[in-house]
């Protein structure tokens, strides 16, 4: 291979390595611009209220402390960590903080998806697939607990599919 070809292929490799970051940064900028639309879900209030309750009481509830119709009934705040996270950023940075956290989680998810797809595909098909995923996910990009779990979903499914593709053992040290 000539020096020129080597340089060119290393440039392509560089631009491919940058692509997940570019996707994540671009999406983050877009979501911050669309800010208020991420707050278009009434449940965000109840999650933040529950997060505050947990922070104030330093414990998680086993009975519904907030609702009108089911107050005192057995109920668990199984999404407590998301609720505490949203309540904390809301205290620190107001609604902008809430949007910033949800936008960060969503853009990280798409960055990770881009990285997983680039292992098998060229940049253009990868971008088409990421765009298709965005079309499907976009109605759900809201400041709610599920969006904080989205990067983990991508990481979990992407990693498991990769180990199976490469016929490796499951990704834990004691499963070998």
């Amino acid at each position, binding site marked *: 291979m000539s020096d020129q070809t080597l340089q060119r292929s290393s440039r392509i490799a560089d631009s491919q390595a940058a692509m997940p970051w570019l996707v994540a940064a671009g999406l983050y900028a877009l979501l911050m611009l669309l800010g208020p639309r991420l707050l278009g879900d009434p449940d965000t209030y109840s999650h933040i209220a529950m997060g505050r309750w947990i922070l104030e009481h330093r414990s*998680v509830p*086993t009975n519904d402390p907030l609702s009108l119709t089911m107050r005192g009934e057995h109920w*668990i705040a*199984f*999404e*407590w*960590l*998301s609720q505490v996270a949203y309540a904390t950023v809301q205290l620190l940075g107001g609604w902008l903080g809430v949007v910033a956290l949800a936008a960060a989680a969503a853009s990280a998810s798409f960055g990770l998806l881009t990285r997983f797809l680039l292992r098998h595909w060229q940049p253009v098909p990868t971008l088409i697939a990421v765009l*298709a995923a965005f*079309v*499907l996910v976009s109605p*759900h990009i809201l400041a709610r*607990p*599920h969006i*904080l*779990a989205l990067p*983990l*979903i991508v990481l*979990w*499914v992407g990693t*498991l*599919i990769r*180990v*199976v593709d490469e*016929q490796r*053992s*499951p*990704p*834990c040290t*004691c*499963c*070998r």
Partner: protein
Amino acid sequence: MTLWANLHGSFTFGIAIAGAIACDALWNAPASARLRVARQWLLFGALALVAACINPYGPEAILVTARTIALGEVLTIVTEWRAQDFTYLGPFELVMLGALGFACIAA
């Protein structure tokens, strides 16, 4: 998995997906390695379940998915739990058709 189980109820689907992926691993493994692969993935699944129980409510958090699905009728009025409606052509149907078409061409 532990972090996921404390953030959102979808972690139970994560364990279910791991089950489906484990079946793929078993299917494609050479016959001589099947027993070893099955043992590895069963152990992985068991560890994922244990990891999911590391939350303030323990195993009860896993039951929330079952409780939600058991609501039955109510789910038809909650948009995110409603079954997909294929009577019109929306973004979901278009992306699914595209992906199916791609899978047919690539296969």
